């Protein structure tokens, strides 16, 4: 007989639902425990995923973009002589491909930045500021007090990170010397004026990258330093696999990588955090399961005589089992629904406002995390969590339901 069309199933559901409200105080305590446990767990998970999501978003927007194209030899030792041949026409082709929102070409040279006080090894990135702004939002990380992003038309301007500025002990309009080996192998150096100081959430990036106009670099070396990197932003991150495949087909001699391949550390954090979130929620649900089992066992003991009567008058053991299961699931589902609603409200509220941890999170920046966190939970996690809660309800119900099955009606009905 189909358990969902069986007439007695309706009755079992009805009795189970009414039984949930039999001892209101106890049921409310269990429901509140589930609600708070779940909401707390989801909110904590949302903070963690929010941090990671933000790290990835800012990492993509400020540093790596969705896809990058390089000469395969360049990636071995980052030697600038391995540039992308016919880079301009390739960039033109890429910009016309579907889903491509913006493209920019960069010169990348490993060099040194020096001030009268200090010296640091850096990646010198030669950019076309107008093109760059379409792909990277680095310009938006320059605070009001940090100058501008290649403001004015003066030659030899440099935009550096806050961390590097502190290390070199320079300020806006200070001069720093940039030194590098040109494509012919000759050492070249020139003084650049600090035009802007950016500050991303990744202090390592801020310390190791300096941005100059590509035109200034070429003038300095008296020739074209080539394009070592083409950065691509798509209109949607989900389209990366399709765009990547298309690019690989069209650019067979070049290396096409997505952000996860360029920054495996970021990709690893994403997957590690996802596992962590599930472990955290698993622990919370495991603890809740004990509470539910305890309550339901108490209920079975309290109702021994009634359960004995039900079995005596002809309710099968499977139906008694189902009744206790349904009752437990009801309790769990009610608590879970309220917990979910509460967590949606909490996550939504703090997603809008953000949680500012700047006063207690100086170390976060070193790992590329923004001190202002915007909690976030994906709908996928909500769905998975609902399934986890449902499974917890079922698993928690098994022990009390089995206990009910072991009752002997002849003994149970006599119990006072």
């Amino acid at each position, binding site marked *: 007989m189909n358990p969902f069309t069986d007439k007695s199933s309706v009755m079992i559901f*009805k009795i189970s639902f009414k039984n949930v409200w039999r001892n209101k105080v106890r049921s409310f305590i269990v429901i509140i425990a589930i609600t708070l446990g779940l909401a707390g767990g989801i909110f904590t998970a949302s903070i963690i995923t929010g941090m990671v999501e933000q790290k990835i978003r800012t990492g993509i927007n400020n540093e790596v973009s969705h896809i990058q194209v390089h000469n395969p030899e360049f990636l071995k030792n980052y030697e600038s002589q391995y540039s992308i041949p016919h880079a301009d026409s390739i960039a033109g082709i890429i910009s016309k491909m579907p889903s491509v929102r913006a493209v920019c070409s960069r010169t990348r040279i490993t060099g040194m930045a020096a001030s009268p006080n200090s010296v640091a090894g850096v990646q010198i990135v030669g950019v076309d500021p107008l093109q760059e702004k379409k792909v990277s939002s680095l310009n938006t990380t320059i605070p009001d007090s940090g100058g501008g992003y290649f403001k004015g038309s003066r030659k030899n301007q440099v935009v550096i990170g806050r961390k590097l500025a502190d290390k070199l002990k320079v300020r806006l309009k200070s001069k720093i010397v940039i030194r590098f080996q040109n494509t012919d192998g000759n050492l070249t150096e020139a003084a650049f004026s600090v035009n802007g100081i950016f500050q991303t959430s990744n202090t390592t990036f801020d310390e190791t990258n300096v941005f100059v106009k590509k035109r200034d670099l070429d003038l300095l070396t008296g020739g074209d330093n080539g394009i070592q990197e083409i950065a691509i932003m798509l209109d949607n991150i989900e389209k990366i696999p399709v765009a990547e495949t298309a690019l690989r087909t069209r650019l067979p001699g070049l290396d096409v990588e997505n952000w996860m391949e360029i920054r495996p550390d970021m990709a690893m954090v994403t997957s590690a955090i996802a596992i962590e979130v599930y472990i955290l929620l698993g622990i919370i649900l495991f603890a809740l399961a004990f509470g539910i089992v305890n309550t339901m066992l108490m209920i079975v003991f309290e109702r021994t005589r009634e359960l004995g009567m039900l079995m005596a008058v*002809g309710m099968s053991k499977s139906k008694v089992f189902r009744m206790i299961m349904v009752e437990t699931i009801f309790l769990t589902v009610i608590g879970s629904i309220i917990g979910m609603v509460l967590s949606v409200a909490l996550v939504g509220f703090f997603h809008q406002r953000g949680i500012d941890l700047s006063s207690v999170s100086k170390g976060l920046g070193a790992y590329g995390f923004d001190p202002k966190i915007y909690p976030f939970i994906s709908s996928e996690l909500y769905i998975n969590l609902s399934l986890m809660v449902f499974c917890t309800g079922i698993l928690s119900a098994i022990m009390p339901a089995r206990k009910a099955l072991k009752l002997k009606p*002849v003994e149970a009905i006599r119990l006072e």
Partner: protein
Amino acid sequence: MNIIEIKNLSKVYDVKTIPVYALNGIDLAFREGEFTSIVGPSGSGKTTMLNLLGGLDSPTGGEIRIDNIDITGLKSRKLIDFRLRNIGFVFQSFNLIPVLTAKENVEFIMQLQGVSKARRDKRTFELLKSVGLGDKINTRPNKLSGGQQQRVAVARALASKPKFILADEPTANLDSKSAENLLEIMEKLNKEEHITFIFSTHDARVVAKARRVITLEDGKIVGDVLKN
């Protein structure tokens, strides 16, 4: 016609490895439409007899045939289904489900049997009316008196159209007026609808109403009187 036949029935409990006979070699038969009291002092075997007749407990020896089916040989699942379709129970402590109304308490037996809603509604109303609770169908047990609760229990026992009803000390928790009222209802159901009742009781009023009185002592029948 006999609806219950008991042959050489015995039930032995081991108390500290010493066998104690709750029932010892009982031979008995019950006819359809009987109104029987099983009486005897505490420990005489009344309740054991009712438990065995109701298939709630298994005997140590002998057989119980109900409508020619030996219920002692039935497996657990079949026995539960047999109880559902053939035996009605009235317990000393009423044992109603407190979260259900009087109607729902009566109805759920029929739901277990798979009876359609229309038939359930009709029969539930008729049964509650027959026990004088036609105006209490939507009342929960905690709003009913002890006597009214036991009447709901009688209606519930009748709901499955059983071959007989086993009532274990049905009047023990009732005041004399409620007990009298309940007995009248059961007597009327017996006379008018030929429903077979088997009671275990200490109550002299029940014994007085019964048309057959079986007396047990130390697990044996010491008296079986059929009144006119």
